[in-house]
Each structure stands twice: as C-alpha cells, then as structure tokens.
C-alpha cells in the first residue's frame, strides 16, 4: 500500500515528525517493501496559512491510501477523511511506524 509519512528526515531511521502538515520532509513509502517512493523537503512547511489543506491535497492527488504522522489539524482531517485516507498516528522512528502499521488490525 502506498503510505504517506510526515517525516523528520529522509530515511527509515528518521523520526516521524512531531507536526503533521509542517513536517520537515514529505515521504512516501510502499508499506509492504519499505521502498521509499519520495522524500522531499516539505515546500509548505513555513507557509502562513492553509498548510494542512496543501499537504492533504498532495496526499489525495498522489494516490496515497494511508498517512502516518502525529495528530492532523481540523482542515487536513476533514479533507483526508473525505478522501478515504486511513490516518495512523505514531511517535517514534519511521521503521518502527511501518512495522506497527503493517501489524495493525
């Protein structure tokens, strides 16, 4: 499954970011293989407003099915829920997050 991660860094040993839309790195992972599909510096990180919607739009438009990160804001939450994106809240490294995500019920 194509999973979005709000990441603090660009590899699997980086932490899941502590803020969702303003995360340092936007990361995409294939959850079964752990393959990193994208890892880019978040261009919206320092935006003045509407950052949650921008990142939610990125997730929806790029075909992600789930998103791993901290709690999402109200605008991002409503967009992601409408888009049928599964939200998986996690604190720790991305590697551990992925393991927990794959074991979820």
């Amino acid at each position: 499954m194509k999973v979005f991660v709000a990441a603090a860094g660009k590899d699997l040993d980086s932490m899941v970011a502590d803020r969702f839309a303003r995360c340092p790195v936007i990361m995409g992972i294939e959850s079964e293989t752990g393959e990193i599909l994208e890892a880019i510096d978040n261009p919206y990180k320092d935006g003045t407003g509407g950052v949650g919607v921008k990142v939610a739009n990125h997730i929806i438009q790029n075909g992600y099915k789930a998103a791993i990160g901290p709690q999402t804001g109200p605008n991002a939450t409503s967009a992601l829920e409408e888009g049928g994106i599964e939200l998986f809240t996690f604190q720790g490294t991305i590697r551990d997050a992925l393991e927990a995500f794959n074991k979820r019920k």
Partner: protein
Amino acid sequence: MKVAVASGKGGTGKTIVSTSLFLSVNDAAYIDMDVEEPNGAIFISPEIEREERFSLPVPSFNENICTFCNACAEACVYSAISVIPQAKKVLFFEELCHSCGVCKYVCPEPGAIVEVPKEIGTIRVGNNGNFVEGTLDIGIPSAVPLISGIKRYIPDNDVVILDSPPGTSCPVVETLKDSDYVILVTEPTPFGINDLSLALDIVRELEKPHGIIVNKHNEKVSLAREFARSKDVEILLEIPFSRKVAEGYSKGIPLVDIEPEYRSNFKDLIERIRVTIS
C-alpha cells in the same frame, strides 16, 4: 483632504480626537473604519439614512458538472479548496478564501464553479452622507475587505476624518494607505510609546506626512516629548488628563462639548495640516 487618526495602542483616544475634529471643522465627514468595534456613533449620534449589507464573492461548486481535474485547488494560493476525485467531492474551506476569483477563472468546465455572495458586515451612512461606519459580522476572519468596501461611501467633503482601528496590522494599513495625513494619538505611558513607535514605522513606510497628539498629557511625564524629539516628529497637540473629560466621555459626551475651547485647537490643527501637505 483625508486625515487618518491612528494609534498603535488601543484606548489612547483615536475616537476622542476623530470625533472632536469632525465636530469642530466645517464641511467635515467622519468615517469609522474600526469595523471590529465602531464607536464614533456614540459621540456623534448620527441620523442613519442607509444601511447596507456588504458581501464578498466566494465560489460554489457544482459536483455534477465538475470533472475533479484539480485545476482550481492547484491555482488557489490560499489552499481553500480540496478536490477529492475518489469521493467525487470538492471541499471548500471558506475561512481560508480571499475572494480572489482565480478558481472560477482557471476552471475549464462552464458552470462547475459559480460565485455566490457571502455577507461579512454592514455599512451605515447617515447625516446626509457625512457619517459612515462599518460593522464586521462576528466570526469573520479579516476586516480588510469591509474597510476597503467602506471607501466607496466616502463623500467628497473638504475634510474627511478616517477613524482607524488600533494595532499595526493589515486593517490599519488598509485605512492609512489612501490618507493624505496621519495623526498618531498616544498616551504618555511606556505601553503607549512602545506602540506609537510601531505605528510610526508603518506611517513612515507608507511615506505619509504625520504628527502626534498626546492624550491624557501630564506635565510631570516627559515620555512622549522625549520620544517625539528622538524621532523628529512634531507634537501637534497635548490634551491634558482631566477627570471632567473622562467622566463626560464615559457618558458619550464629545470632548468639544465638555470643553468647547478645544474647538479652536482642532480647527487650527486642520489648517496647519492643510499647509503641511500642500
């Protein structure tokens, strides 16, 4: 000429000065731009002749025509739109919308986006058009569009007084940018001077001629005079603190009715400003 009355800090006396100018000068108009808390009417007691609701255009999406191409969401710099092809839905975040119209402009499908009015406040006009005030509806995030909208109601009187909102952000800039002269009202307290300094920076950035009125002046406190000297700004008038004025003000009596001798001070002031900007 348009004379704006601003302050930085709230409660220094913008309205006492604005209404005094309006009530002292011939052929003047008073415009209350402090749309989040207009209070000039308390002192002017205008006869309101017209009351109009003010609205802004916001997009409305027809999901039966929309092809969910995402062009609108990509074009929206305020991120007010989320297009969800999976759910055949468009989410619109109205509080993020700035009514710029770009979504409708870029939409390739006629009728998928139409603009509908969203009411944000009320504009009242009275005293044969010489009194104008705006009131922003509760919950509306930005006062700027309403302040901009009020400008269409400004009459062409010889002297137009613009009563500015407090602070140093967008609503203040929107009020000051079309003025010919800015009066900065301060009080001789550290808070008053601190915010006066911020307001002065804005006025200088906007390159507006300006001067200071010190309200609640106290001969024993030289804060405002020292500040004016250090920044090379003229003190136009000092209004000494007076319990009589404060008590009258609390009952909605204008300064120039409590102390009528101030009328000539404000008349002179306007003539001095006229010379400065000519």
